[in-house]
């Protein structure tokens, strides 16, 4: 922090930062505000910003018409389950690639990432047929597996970059100190990898929570998470902006709160271990 700005430049850059922040945040703010309006006010022109008739009626209607808690529970099971399953597979995979790489390690990593380059819709029909034949349509377990597989390349990549940052010397020092592989994992590697594991878990949780393509196509009611719940309010008979906003607010609230409290880990997660 050798560079210290003058008073005026600090004011200008602070204002600019707030402005950009506000612009990015504005759609979410607008959604929250709209959820407290009546349906008429919600699409009135010119729109009213703060001076409207505040009501919580939309939230009541939304809860009456569709069971928010049921969908929220599905979201938690699907996002949480797929994240845990992905970590369970990714930790040993990333571990072996980071600490005993072979000639093909780089190729395997690239191949895994390349699976993310194909548009999901390209495999919709085969996946739908597989789900149908195995009786996985509209089941939570099916979505847990699918989202886990979908995010696995990213999880492995992230963990790989974190593990790579851990100096080999330290693991060798533990080995010289008499630690077995198991104890080395428990006492040395895991504590050093916790920030990386935490940010990977958070990022994957958010990706899985917000995933809409597969959840919309493969679930109807039983296993439908919050994404389906939101989508059900954009119906062909006409849009209910206020109710849609209320549903959306309810859907993003949990993840917004988690994100708020774990900003540091998230930023680190999003920079993909590039910042040391």
């Amino acid at each position, binding site marked *: 922090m050798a560079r210290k700005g003058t008073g005026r430049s600090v004011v200008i850059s602070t204002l600019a930062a707030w402005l950009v922040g506000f612009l990015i945040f504005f759609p979410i703010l607008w959604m929250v505000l709209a959820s407290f309006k009546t349906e008429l006010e919600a699409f009135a022109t010119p729109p009213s910003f703060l001076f409207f008739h505040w009501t919580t009626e939309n939230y009541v209607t939304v809860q009456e018409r569709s069971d928010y808690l049921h969908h929220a529970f599905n979201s938690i099971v699907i996002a949480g389950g797929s994240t845990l399953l992905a970590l369970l597979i990714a930790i040993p995979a990333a571990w072996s690639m980071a600490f005993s790489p072979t000639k093909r390690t780089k190729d395997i990593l690239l191949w895994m990432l390349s699976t993310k380059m194909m548009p999901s819709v390209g495999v919709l029909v085969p996946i739908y047929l597989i789900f149908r034949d195995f009786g996985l349509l509209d089941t939570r377990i099916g979505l847990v597996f699918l989202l886990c597989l979908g995010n696995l390349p990213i999880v492995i990549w992230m963990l790989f970059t974190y593990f790579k940052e851990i100096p080999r010397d*330290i693991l060798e020092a533990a080995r*010289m100190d008499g*630690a077995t592989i198991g104890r080395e994992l428990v006492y040395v590697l895991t504590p050093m990898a916790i920030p990386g594991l935490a940010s990977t878990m958070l990022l994957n949780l958010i990706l899985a929570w917000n995933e809409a393509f597969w959840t919309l196509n493969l679930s109807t009611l039983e296993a439908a998470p919050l994404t389906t719940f939101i989508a059900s309010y954009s119906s062909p008979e006409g849009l209910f902006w206020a109710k849609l906003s209320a549903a959306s607010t309810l859907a993003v609230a949990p993840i917004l709160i988690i994100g708020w409290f774990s900003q540091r880990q998230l930023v680190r997660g999003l920079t993909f271990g590039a910042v040391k």
Partner: protein
Amino acid sequence: MGRITLEGVQKSFGPVHIIKGADLDIPDGAFVVFVGPSGCGKTTLLRLIAGLEDVSGGRILIDGNNVVDVPPAKRGLSMVFQSYALYPHMSVRGNIAFGLKMAGLPKAEINQKVEAAAATLNLTPYLDRKPRELSGGQRQRVAIGRAIVREPKAFLFDEPLSNLDAALRVQMRLEVTRLQKQLGTTAIYVTHDQVEAMTMADKIVVLNAGRIEQYGSPIELYQRPANLFVAGFIGSPKMNLITGEEAARRGATTIGVRPEHVAIVDEGGEGWRGEVLVAEHLGSDTFLYVDAGPLGTLTVRCVGEKRLTAGDHVTLRPEPSRVYRFDGNGTAIFG
């Protein structure tokens, strides 16, 4: 006890031979330094002894037992790494205690040993700090503490002082030597710094391109270098090496004479004539770089202050008993 014997130890990574057959006997309690230019295999040899690398051939014996198939943890050695390799999430106490904890010692005994090690290394006030809150020298001492607390059969040091500044390096050099003598534990110390090697070692192993060139006490290496490589590597400033007619006259392909064994004689006397190129006045010594025509540039070390400057003409005379002779293969000719 900590006698370490290497018998025909080899190591290759794929087609590249790093260690080409090393035989060595390190007696119990000795301080042995592996020295050589970078890439000579000294660190690899140390890692083979530690068990962090597997040998490609040969045997490593610790107190007579072959340990090539024994994992590092079971060899009873401890190692100090160049990067210190402290556990960043543990306090100094945790770092020093880790090995004892892994060995399953009772808590009271661990505490007592950690306190004792910390006292020896002046670390007592820092026991509850994390490594990132310590200076380089303190971190180095923690790494040493972690090594001594386990009372190993031998210490392995991998260039432990190379990250410290010059003044601290000299101080730590003394501390490490004193500590090793006090504990009487075998130590193997890797460095590329021949001054460190000469000052610390009971015995020096000079390595070059994966081979042991010579194994002996510092003074043996200085007085009777086995070949050109050792002659050029040990001693500072470097030995003057002269080829051609002057060497042939003495029945050798190359002759060598150390800067401190060349005297300046009065003008007109017998000797090598030359012109001073650079004169370095250090007060205690004067270093002269002399252009001696067909002999090349010679370095001369004179004790005390010599009033000579660039451009002066001098006559040099080597001490006859200190002229080393080498044959066409670079092997020393004695007698």
